[in-house]
């Protein structure tokens, strides 16, 4: 290849010249449903602050982020599974199971916190492994696999505990969900859940830019093509299920602090997480959507509930609003993707160029 003898810097420059600018890429992404959710989120935040200005104070905003962290983390986990073209319905049961494991195994003993935390992560990864292997190797639809896991896991938990709330774990453990770094200027407090969320989101973003993340999306887009490029589809998907169960574990750890140990903790989490992911413009069936949009979907949903609360709407209507939102969001996304496709065939085309013209052609920017 003619570029191979060029210096490293030049090579990167040529690459950059043949890519869209960062601004263009951002603008294009914002026009997709996955970008739209950020605009929706900002609009909702403005509406909430208009309805109740005190919500806009840094202290109350950061606490809001802390409250929303568990569902946002769960949504990030569910994103991995959905973008690979599968479902994880067992998420809620994993949250419940982890809450009970923490409650029963840690008890009042501070010394047990770390070993049990380790055990919970191993357990989470194990559940995801089973979900993934049964889905990919036994070729059972993930809807059925994770439904079976949901029933079995919840049944086991309720059976072993008799279905009643049990004692809360040591306070040091609950601090993970409840506590925070105090005496911070402006914010007063940075809740630990916020930190955990930021770390999770950053890790997820990093992972999605790694070869694994790109391969995961490729598998969701076209698993046959991905298999023919040498991707181990079964292992790529299985790891997505493990990430999902691990994120449910993290959500569970935070929720113990908030809500204590009760069989209803985690109930319906899978559907809320799926709602958030779908609201984030991620297409069911896989292959499209950003990981941070899933988290943004969760925040948009919670902001909406807050707004309804401030507007004096009864909390019992929350479900209905969530239902309407999810249908409207997906319908709008479906129309957008469709318009995009149709538009592509009729409108006069975007300018195209030969990729990376040889340097001899000249020094003009795109070198037509």
């Amino acid at each position, binding site marked *: 290849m003619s*570029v191979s003898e060029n210096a490293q810097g030049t090579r990167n420059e040529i*690459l950059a010249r043949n890519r869209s600018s960062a601004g263009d890429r951002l603008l294009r992404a914002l026009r997709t449903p996955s970008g739209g959710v950020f605009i929706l989120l900002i609009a909702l935040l403005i509406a909430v602050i208009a309805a109740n200005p005190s919500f806009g104070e840094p202290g109350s905003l950061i606490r809001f982020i802390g409250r929303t962290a568990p569902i946002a983390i769960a949504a990030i986990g569910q994103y991995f599974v959905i973008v690979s073209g599968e479902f994880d319905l067992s998420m809620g049961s994993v949250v419940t199971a982890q809450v009970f494991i923490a409650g029963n195994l840690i008890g009042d003993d501070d010394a047990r916190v770390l070993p049990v935390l380790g055990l919970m992560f191993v357990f989470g990864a194990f559940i995801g492994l089973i979900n993934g292997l049964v889905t990919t190797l036994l070729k059972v639809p993930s809807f059925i696999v994770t439904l079976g896991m949901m029933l079995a896991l919840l049944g086991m938990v309720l059976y072993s505990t008799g279905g009643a709330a049990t004692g809360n774990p040591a306070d040091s453990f609950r601090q993970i969900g409840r506590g925070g770094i105090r005496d911070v200027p402006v914010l007063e407090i940075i809740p630990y859940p916020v930190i955990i969320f930021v770390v999770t989101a950053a890790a997820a973003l990093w992972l999605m830019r790694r070869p694994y993340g*790109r391969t995961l999306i490729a598998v969701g887009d*076209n698993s046959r*093509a991905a298999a023919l490029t040498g*991707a181990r589809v079964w292992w790529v998907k299985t790891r997505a299920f493990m990430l999902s169960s691990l994120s449910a574990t993290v959500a569970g750890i935070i929720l113990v602090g908030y809500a204590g140990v009760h069989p209803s903790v985690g109930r319906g989490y899978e559907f809320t997480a799926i709602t958030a992911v779908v609201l984030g413009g991620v297409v069911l069936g896989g*292959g499209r959507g950003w990981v941070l949009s899933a988290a943004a979907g969760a925040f948009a949903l919670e902001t909406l509930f807050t707004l309804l609360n401030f507007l004096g709407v009864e909390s019992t209507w929350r479900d209905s609003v969530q239902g309407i939102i999810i249908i409207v969001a997906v319908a709008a996304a479906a129309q957008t993707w469709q318009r995009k496709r149709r538009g592509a065939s009729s409108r006069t085309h975007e300018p195209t*160029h030969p*990729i*990376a013209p040889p340097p001899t052609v000249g020094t003009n920017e795109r070198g037509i």
Partner: protein
Amino acid sequence: MDKEVFPLESRVNTPVVLSVSGLSKSFFGIEVLKDVSLELRSGEVHGLVGENGAGKSTLMKLLAGVHHRDSGTIELSGAPVDFSHPTQAHEAGLSTVFQEFNLLPDRTVAENIYLGREPRSGILVNRKAMLERTRELLDQLGITSIQPSTPVSNLSVAQQQIVEIAKAVSYDARIISMDEPTAALAGPEVELLYSIIGRLKERGVAILYVSHRLKEIFDLCDTITVLKDGEVVGSQPASSMDDASLVRLMVGRPISAYFPEVTPGTIIGEPLLEVADAGNEQLDSINLALRTGEIVGIAGLQGSGRTELVEAIFGAAPFTRGSMRLAGEAYTARSTRTAIQHRVALITEDRKSQGLSLNQSILDNALSVIRSVFPGRTNQARQDAPGVFSSLEVIARDLDQEVQYLSGGNQQKVVLAKWLAISPRLVLLDEPTRGIDVGAKVAVYNLMRALAAEGKAILMVSSELPEVLGMSDRVLVMRDGLIAGELSPTSTEEEVLQLATGARTEETPS
């Protein structure tokens, strides 16, 4: 089958049933049909020929109401029509047999043929009537091997094709257009198709017949229209043409001009791939040796095991018997991943369903193999990407454009680029030029020559006989899962076809 079986009487006096004039259509800003006009007469078989990408399929889809024309008129028996849905075309008496199957595998033959028009008594579907009518229809067409109550998934590809044709006939069509109906058929089934077409002609049905097989065109057609780059370049009675004149019209210059000469300095060296007595459920007794710098073509009918052979070498559907050696060492392609780790590449037949992630960018697609198998080299490959795309002459907005918006030729180049990233030693190509424009074809041919010159070994499956004969150093012909014989590139298309269909059974390499 010879022309004499269906006497070529003059059809000039039968009424014109379909008249197309000034038809144009663009996709993605590229004009694929330009000012096309043609006439079809009752009882006439009208051949429509042209290279891949000449616009034949688009023309059929415009007639069938699948796509909508940009300009021009279509008249049926003198009345202008404007179909926006295939159903309207059916109702007007124009049916189409498409290349893609339009059957439900889990439903019966009768249910498929009468789908959407199930005969009823009262509100209930009259299944007995449906089966009887199907039986009658199949009898009329002389088809005895297919039972109306068989689920379509139990039929062979050829039988499914026959059901498609029966379905088209069942609309009481006055005009039937067929897009490469023999692509999936072998000897006796082609004869069945000939006899079906004969019966339809007798009933005064006009047939628009698309095929790549020139013999069929001359056997069946009364008139031939040639499309080239979306334009009609000739429309004449078949009797006034021969193979040579037809090919000249199709390509505008001798076919050989498309195929680049062997790059000077190309050396056919040591055997790179050796396959001995290999087989699996679809293949048996496969023996072949492929040398560095060599291009070997694989010909054969669809379903003869061509695709299965390259898939077996690539580990997508591995051999279960026999052995392979790669560069002298034992090579077991247990999975595609093992094959890729040995730097074997497969450019698949179906770009969209097997080759690309359509919703992802050019760059993501180009890096997909590297990311899956050699993730450590991703950055290197990313920096190399512009050079690779430049040498392949890819035209796009930029590397961040989603591949679904590229033309077929550019999409194929993206597929090639993702495999070049692993510097393959052995390149398997399955129908590498299907559905791409002439310019892209030449780019593919040039790349093959360049790879051969670098000492890679290339195995190319193709249905385009001129391509197989024009590009290969040797040609292997497959039939029924076996290698039926080996031919030199100086053989004629006729010889290849005879071997492929079993008309000639054994061929020893000279």
